[in-house]
């Protein structure tokens, strides 16, 4: 068909070859830029995790001291063991360990301060649980207080001038004697997740924050999931397309972009101000987070519903299914992976949200874990906020450790989202 005499394009012409080289070069640049971007992102991530781990890992262990405590019956009354003078018992114990230390209050207090303030309560709880121990000598392992924990972990440099240190030479010497006697141990710090918050870093833990976050997320999920899906189904499948539905759609998209602190103010004004709900409770936290998560879930659900191929709807309509049967029997099950993914991403976002919780008072100092969603509590991000604000040296590493715990939860939730998507994904 082609006429051989017409001008044939010369594929070997230098201009064409130059163009080809340029094209290849451009492609190479584009690829390099992409790789570079990914490398930078990855390096940032490594840097973040690396710095968190390098400061946070100190908090995963806690220095403990093993002491022989003589439960003097003169200091504990058998009929009211909870009111015994356990502080004096500990002072006596420490004094017996350091017989050469002068017997005056200041020196004795220094000795006792090696032990965590929680030690007396540990012993009290033991005695209350088993009053038969009174008069015996028991061996207990108790945390040491924060400065000594820091010293043991090498975070206090003995070479700094004494006045710039938190521990004097005498105190360090005393502690070293205990270390040489082999009475120290450094087990995993389970207290970080089994204790509630405390003024003393060696006792402070995340139990209250974890439970508080869990309750808040539960409330958020139970409200935002059904309401969000319901709203999305109505808007996507049943609502007539007119000005009003356009307006609603625009507003939902805008709500998703509203700064979270604004939702916090709304929660404060509505739930606490008007409805008189208590402050600092996970229930109100969950309601506020639900306000924030709702637009995310609605948008994700609508996108998932839209992605279901129209042929499936037609097929179901064609055999005489009603609109409602089409939606609930065919469209919704097919959209479920997308909906679940969107919901979990929304909840993960809610889990990490700090500002709205600060406004409704979930950054209070609360030393017990909440028993119900209506008890005062903190949440993980607000707990991090509180610890980051605390002056004690021990909270520095605990803040990083708490961030790592929060990140673990977030990664777990995202992993669940991926798992669910793969499990429910169906081909058509």
């Amino acid at each position, binding site marked *: 068909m082609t006429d051989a005499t017409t001008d044939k394009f010369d594929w070997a012409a230098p201009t064409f070859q130059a163009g080809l080289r340029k094209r290849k070069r451009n492609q190479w640049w584009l690829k390099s830029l992409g790789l570079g971007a990914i490398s930078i992102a990855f390096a940032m991530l490594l840097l973040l995790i690396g710095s968190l781990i390098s400061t946070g890992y100190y908090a995963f262990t806690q220095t403990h001291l093993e002491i022989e405590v003589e439960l003097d019956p003169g200091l504990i009354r058998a009929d009211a063991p909870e009111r015994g003078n356990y502080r004096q018992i500990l002072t006596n114990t420490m004094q017996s360990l350091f017989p050469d230390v002068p017997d005056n209050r200041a020196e004795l207090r220094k000795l006792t301060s090696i032990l965590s303030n929680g030690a007396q309560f540990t012993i009290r709880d033991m005695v209350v649980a088993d009053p038969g121990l009174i008069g015996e000598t028991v061996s207990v392992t108790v945390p040491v207080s924060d400065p000594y924990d820091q010293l043991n972990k090498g975070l206090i440099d003995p070479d700094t001038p004494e006045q710039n240190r938190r521990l004097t030479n005498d105190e360090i010497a005393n502690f070293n004697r205990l270390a040489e006697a082999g009475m120290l141990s450094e087990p995993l710090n389970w207290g970080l997740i089994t204790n509630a918050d405390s003024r003393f870093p060696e006792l402070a833990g995340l139990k209250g924050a974890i439970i508080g976050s869990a309750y808040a997320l539960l409330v958020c999920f139970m409200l935002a999931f059904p309401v969000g899906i319901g709203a999305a189904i109505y808007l996507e499948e049943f609502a007539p397309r007119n000005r009003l539905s356009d307006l609603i759609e625009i507003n939902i998209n805008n709500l998703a972009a509203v700064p979270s602190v604004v939702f916090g103010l709304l929660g404060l004004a509505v739930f606490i101000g008007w409805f008189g709900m208590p402050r600092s409770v996970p229930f109100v936290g969950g309601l506020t987070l639900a306000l924030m998560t709702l637009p995310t879930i609605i948008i994700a659900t609508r996108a998932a519903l839209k992605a279901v*191929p129209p*042929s*499936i709807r*037609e097929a179901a*309509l*064609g*055999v*005489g*299914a009603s609109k409602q049967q089409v939606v609930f029997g065919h469209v919704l099950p097919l959209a479920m992976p997308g909906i679940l993914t969107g919901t979990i991403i929304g909840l993960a976002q809610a889990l990490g949200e700090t500002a709205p919780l600060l406004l409704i008072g979930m950054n209070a100092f609360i030393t017990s874990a909440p028993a119900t969603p209506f008890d005062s509590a903190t949440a993980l991000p607000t707990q991090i906020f509180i610890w980051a604000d605390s002056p004690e040296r021990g909270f520095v590493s605990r803040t990083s450790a708490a961030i790592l715990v929060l990140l673990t939860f977030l990664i777990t939730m995202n992993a669940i989202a991926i798992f669910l998507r793969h499990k429910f994904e169906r081909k058509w």
Partner: protein
Amino acid sequence: MYDVTKPEHDVAQAETKISARGVQVYYGDTHAIKDVDVDIADKTVTSFIGPSGCGKSTFLRCINRMNDTIDICRVKGDIRIDGQDIHAPSVDPVQLRAKVGMVFQKPNPFPKSIYDNVAYGPKIHGMTRNKAELDEVVEAALRGAGLWDEVKDRLDTPGTGLSGGQQQRLCIARAVATQPEVLLMDEPCSALDPIATALIEDLIDGLKKQFSVVIVTHSMQQAARISQKTAFFHLGNLVEYGDTDMIFTNPQDERTENYITGRTG
């Protein structure tokens, strides 16, 4: 004005099943179907032919009110099935669609098992009292679609795992399962290879014993092979309607002639 040409021998060879008068369809501002009058006979295969965008599929979708599901689409005019106006307030479009089955261009089985695909219609309409009856209905429908022998041992495997031709027959079985009176087919073979197409054509030939079959097709050979009546649509008008033999051998309208001889379309 009136493009409908009715050859005289078109009169009452079979009972009229569907009767349409003055049907107009608008998509937004577009006038897609212009004043179509047609009578479709019972137990006959009627094919709609015409160039792309001529409105044949749109008209087909009027018959089971599928166009109702498109927001911007408006249908005017009078369509009767067995004398019953399908736009009458007493007619439920959902019920109508069970009575007027539809098979689509692309095979669209549900992402469910073969059994559930066929059983879906009878289930939602409560047509069976128990599992045994449902089993019978499913078997009958699959036999009717010529698929039973191929799938009887794997009824619980996904319908989407079948080949294209099998999927299309599964869709036919699904439509047949609700015991319709009319079967609408919108280019059912356009996504299939010639062997699968031949199977479906044989099937349609058998189906016309039970239903009035209306098929939209792009293949004039197919229309000539399987249909007794043919309607030619052009730019939203029904140009010519009559016995298939007549349309293909002795078209009355110039536009029909141009189309079937390949000069336009």
